[in-house]
């Protein structure tokens, strides 16, 4: 296997790495590689921080192993190679009445990446996390051995949400979810403030629910935003337009506070006072940002950070205080997301817990970095946790305290990969494999 020395970055582009990447096109090539020089897998580098980076080391990019190996139209179980992107899976199966059970906010995430972070979607309150729909997976360990892992296998809960530390996931059997077709019927509603938002999120019985928050609004308007509730449907809508691309790094003023405030106000007023129901292709609802390729370049060369935490239901006031801190700073960028999470999680290091999750983007500047540190302490104090798929700034000690099974996980992982061949920049930064 040839290795290519590459500079690559997490989606936030604030953290980068230079290292050797392999990109096998056949399973035999992957197995041979793992036998010779085991390395962590990476998917499409849609995690924001350093989960997908291995500076000065090797990594195996999985995008070329992306085939559908089998599908049972009665049960909706599909077997796919781990480099398959979720948006492609949805494109192929939605017209046949099936969707991946869980889809994150980008269709460019791979099945391997979705398992390794046990991702959640806009239906987490109803169906739980991605890993809960994995029937089995095939793993090549750092010893080069291939093992089929079902949910009763001791390594299952260490692999789901396991940050690639148990081996390279080659393929997985996924239980998909029935859908009515490849369009989605979305009801959008203006929400005037925080309490109203939580009330609506708690009461929503839609299959898919997401809240867009104007993280610049303060005072009475704090927590205002748009609630989107959706169900799949069938029928004709105009096909999604061609993707546009951000061709270069934007200058610093592109996301200046005044611009963001104006954008947010307009985004909010886009939805009429009394709400509306629209029908769109599923991609536009599930992956709204994928239409603009490389939108992460809008933040310029320095990149950006996403802060995402979840806090237990009874800690809603603490989350409100965090939002106040964010709004007061004037640093937030347009898109902030508020969701109600259910208890569903499938791995020892999975992020979800029953409660509310808030995700906000910040440009990579000293003041934002300091504020994110404060938000991290707030999260810990509230008994919540920070999402590793988004993190690039947390401190190891507080992070580890947020994940009660971290030690048990580290023990299992260290036994599986005693030489630490699969460690990544994130594992080292947060000391995640320390027992």
């Amino acid at each position, binding site marked *: 296997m*040839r290795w290519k*020395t590459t500079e690559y970055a997490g989606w936030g582009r604030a953290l980068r790495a230079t290292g050797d990447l392999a*990109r096998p*096109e*056949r*399973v035999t090539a992957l197995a041979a590689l793992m036998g010779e020089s085991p390395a962590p897998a990476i998917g499409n580098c849609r995690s924001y921080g350093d989960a997908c980076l291995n500076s000065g080391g090797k990594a195996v990019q999985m995008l070329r192993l992306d085939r*559908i*190996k089998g599908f049972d139209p009665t049960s909706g179980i599909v077997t796919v190679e781990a480099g398959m992107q979720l948006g492609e899976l949805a494109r*192929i199966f939605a017209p046949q009445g099936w969707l991946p059970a869980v889809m994150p906010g980008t269709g460019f995430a791979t099945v391997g990446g979705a398992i390794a972070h046990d991702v959640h979607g806009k239906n987490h309150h109803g169906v739980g996390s991605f890993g809960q729909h994995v029937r089995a997976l095939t793993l090549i360990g750092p010893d080069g051995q291939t093992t089929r892992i079902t949910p009763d296998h001791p390594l299952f809960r260490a692999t789901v949400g396991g940050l690639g530390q148990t081996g390279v996931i080659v393929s997985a059997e996924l239980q998909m979810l029935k859908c009515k077709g490849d369009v989605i019927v979305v009801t959008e509603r203006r929400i005037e403030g925080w309490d109203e938002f939580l009330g609506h999120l708690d009461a929503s019985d839609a299959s898919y629910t997401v809240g867009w928050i104007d993280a610049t609004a303060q005072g009475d308007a704090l927590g205002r935003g748009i609630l989107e509730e959706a169900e799949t449907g069938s029928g004709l809508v105009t096909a999604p337009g061609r993707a546009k691309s951000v061709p270069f790094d934007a200058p610093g003023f592109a996301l200046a506070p005044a611009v963001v405030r104006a954008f947010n106000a307009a985004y909010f007023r886009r939805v009429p006072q009394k709400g509306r129901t629209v029908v769109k292709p599923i991609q536009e609802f599930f992956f709204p940002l994928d239409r603009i390729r490389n939108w992460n370049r809008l933040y310029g060369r320095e990149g950006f950070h996403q802060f995402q935490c979840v806090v237990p239901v009874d800690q809603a006031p603490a989350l409100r205080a965090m939002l106040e801190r964010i709004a007061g700073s004037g640093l937030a960028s347009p898109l902030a997301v508020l969701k109600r999470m259910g208890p569903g999680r499938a791995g020892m290091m999975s992020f979800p817990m029953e409660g509310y999750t808030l995700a906000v983007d910040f440009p990579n500047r000293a003041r934002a970095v300091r504020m994110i540190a404060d938000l991290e302490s707030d999260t810990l104090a509230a008994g919540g946790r920070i999402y590793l798929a988004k993190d690039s700034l947390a401190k190891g000690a507080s992070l580890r305290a947020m994940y009660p099974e971290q030690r048990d996980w580290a023990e299992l992982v260290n036994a599986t990969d005693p030489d630490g061949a699969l460690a990544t920049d994130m594992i080292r930064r947060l000391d995640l494999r320390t027992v």
Partner: protein
Amino acid sequence: MAVKKGEVWILLGATSAMARAMARQLAERGDALILTGRDMDDMAATAADCEIRGAHDARVVAFDARDPETFQPIIDLLDERIVNAAVFVGSMPDQGDIDSDPSLVDGTVMDSFTGPARFLQQLAPEIEARGAGVVVGVGSVAGDRGRLGNYVYGAAKAGFHTYLSGLRNRLTRAGGHVVTVKPGFIDTAMTWGIEGMFLVAPPEKVAADILKAADRRRDVIYTPFFWRYIMAIIRAIPERVFKKMSI
């Protein structure tokens, strides 16, 4: 006349990234596939993938350019449907390795030229009998001019180009057609991590170009298209200058 739906496509060398991309695109328009090559497990995965994406059916058969015994069983699979073929096989050992081990010349020529040519000789009567069918031969810009870095591979591909032009002459009069494809640098396992690659094109783009060329019965295409101009310049360099260059 465009290639119609529901036809059969034989892909020689179906484990290559370019062939896989083309198989998927053929699958999405409902064609039937015969995938051939050496790694049977890998082709089985591609076949399953193609059937789920809409292929009429996808079969997997062994093909080894260096083993002519494997050729006839592929031909024997054909029924009365129109048959098309695309040749992706070829091998490019490091020129330095060939320089120190001249016996590598034979395998390179067999993989990239004589093996596929002999197979196509066996297939040609089938196309003539049906009065239709397209052969796509994937050659290389390396075949346009012999150069220091890969002249044995280049020579094999040049031979293949000449063969394809003759086959085109033969099949055209029987209602068939031959497309010669000259890819530049394509982003595959073959070029991954090799120094000096530029303007590397994704295999999906190349596959789409190939299908379009087959539909429109183009004779010779470069893909991506700009390689036509790059190669025009390279061919225009006088030999007395070229022989001292290392490009």
